[in-house]
């Protein structure tokens, strides 16, 4: 039995590796996949993401209502855009949303992330609950909060000492506050996850050394934890900027851009111009503004923070 197996296996390597492999060619190149393997996915992605990105630039110089073919109109959309008070206001509102989002979510998610990074069993269970909002669609979350905040049947009606007449979404300040809060409810778990992962990477020896030097928990947090989380803070803030700029479902479902145009942020304004007024040229121009701003802000954050020059966060170890 054993001999048969050995005999069978032998012919599988006729002549050994020397045969059939031309000298001078590195052995490590053999059996490597060619560039062809990457083509199907690349073509597919180019078709739906990269070509449209170029197309949106072209479309921003045309007028198109969805019927027939787009017509070239030069700078007309762009001139109209810079004269459009709703557009200018939407940029300020987007900026406000981004800043408020960062200010509310960052301290909370750092605190929760660092806390959840501990090994205690109860923290693992609580973390599992924290992450639930992350799994839900923006649509479901918005519909849920709209129902919870209903002026007649929702929580505000029951807590009039806090919410007054209960129609929170009826004022601009109230509507903005709700959108910021719902954004926090939805996205804090995600950023918590980033900080939790990063906090677990911090070498325990740093804390041990600090303890020996007599540093308390608070001191350790500000002198060790925060500096060590620098990279994660940058990542998280960039994601908040891009996410804040493209917030859409929550605005559509919770406030529909209102009251009036009180919460018409740029991404929502784009949707309205393109798909409610069927002015796809202007919609494309706004879309291009979104891409340029989000790319520029991401670059600026990376540059200003020195992230691009920093190789290791564990220098000196």
């Amino acid at each position, binding site marked *: 039995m054993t001999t048969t197996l050995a005999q069978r296996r032998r012919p599988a390597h006729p002549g050994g*590796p020397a045969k059939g492999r031309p000298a001078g060619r590195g052995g490590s190149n053999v*059996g*490597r*996949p060619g*560039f062809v*393997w*990457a083509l*199907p*996915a690349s073509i*597919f*992605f180019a078709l*739906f*993401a*990269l*070509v*449209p*990105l170029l197309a*949106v630039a072209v*479309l921003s110089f045309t007028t198109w209502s*969805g019927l027939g073919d787009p017509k070239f109109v030069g700078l007309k959309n762009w001139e109209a855009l810079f004269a459009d008070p709703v557009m200018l206001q939407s940029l300020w509102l987007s900026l406000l949303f981004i800043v408020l989002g960062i200010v509310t979510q960052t301290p*909370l998610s750092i*605190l*929760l992330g660092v*806390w959840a990074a501990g090994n205690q069993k109860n*923290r693992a269970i*609580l973390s599992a*609950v924290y992450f*639930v*909002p992350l*799994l839900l*669609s*923006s649509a*479901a979350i918005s*519909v*849920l909060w*709209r*129902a*919870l905040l209903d002026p007649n*049947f929702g929580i505000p*009606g029951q807590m009039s000492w806090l919410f007054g007449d209960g129609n929170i979404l009826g004022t601009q300040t109230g509507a903005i506050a709700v959108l910021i809060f719902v954004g926090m*409810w939805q996205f804090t778990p*995600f950023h918590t*996850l*980033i900080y939790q*992962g990063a906090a677990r990477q911090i070498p*325990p020896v740093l*804390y*041990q050394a600090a303890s020996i030097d007599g540093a308390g928990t608070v001191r350790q947090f500000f002198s060790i934890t925060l500096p060590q989380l620098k990279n994660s803070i940058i990542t998280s803030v960039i*994601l908040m900027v891009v996410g804040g700029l*493209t917030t859409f*479902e929550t605005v*559509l*479902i919770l406030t529909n851009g209102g009251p009036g145009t009180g919460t018409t942020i740029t991404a929502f304004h784009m949707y309205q111009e393109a798909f409610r007024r069927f002015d*796809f040229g202007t*919609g494309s121009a706004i*879309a291009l503004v*979104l*891409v340029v701003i*989000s790319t520029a802000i*991401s670059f600026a954050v990376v540059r200003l923070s020195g992230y691009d020059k920093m190789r290791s966060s564990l220098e000196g170890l």
Partner: protein
Amino acid sequence: MKTRPNYLAGIGAFIWLAIVAVPLYVMLSATFQTRAEFGDNGPLSLPTSFTLQNYVDAVTSGFGRYFLNTIIVTVGVVGLVLLLVPPLSYAIVRSQSRAASAIFRLFLLGLAIPAQAVIVPVFYLINTVGLYDNLLGVILPTAAFALPICTIILSGTMRDITPELYEAMAMDGATPAKSFLRLVLPLSKGGLSTIAVFSALQAWNGFLFPLILTQSESTRVVTLGLFNFQTQFGINIPGLLAAVTLSMVPVLLVYLFARRALVQGLMGAGGK
């Protein structure tokens, strides 16, 4: 390794738990109450009766069909992702051609393209090829936008396969295709399940592409169904919340059974 209790963070953690859990509790308890009872007692009170009528209402008001559509979209997206991403990641990790590394950089760049930015041209494209109001027209762009993250996750997994294994395969005269099928795929199971779960979540929760690319009831997906239900029957809050709850159940089940894959996928999205 920190054993020192952190009271401030602990208190914050419990407050946040309440903020997350109370709305979810209100949602669940409302779905088991009649509309009249919910209206009288208000959202924060404990339920006094029990009914499943709201779920029946939700299903009969069209959500059965919407669920089927969402399942079709999800299966299509996951299928496409599993078909396209493994060969791409394999080429990125193992090919020595410059083109492959250029493609990887292109996909990294692609992470930064928001769907809103390209929605108008995608709408134009889908219209031109006659896929408007067709679930395939939703599947294609949704899958395309899941590609960058899935590629980053899967090529990360494939990088962990030691080069010696590839070389051993090559010594045996294996073609790239054979190495791919016999070595790479079996050893990438973890990454494959992560991208499957992650792209399924994207597809299940997708809103913008279905909103723009479909219009009729027969192609409506669950997320759009919720939006529509709210605009039409917004006053029936228990019914609405039953529909919301139903839309969450499959995701929560996946979370229970594939938590690691899901969290890894989300971390891949954040830890770029």
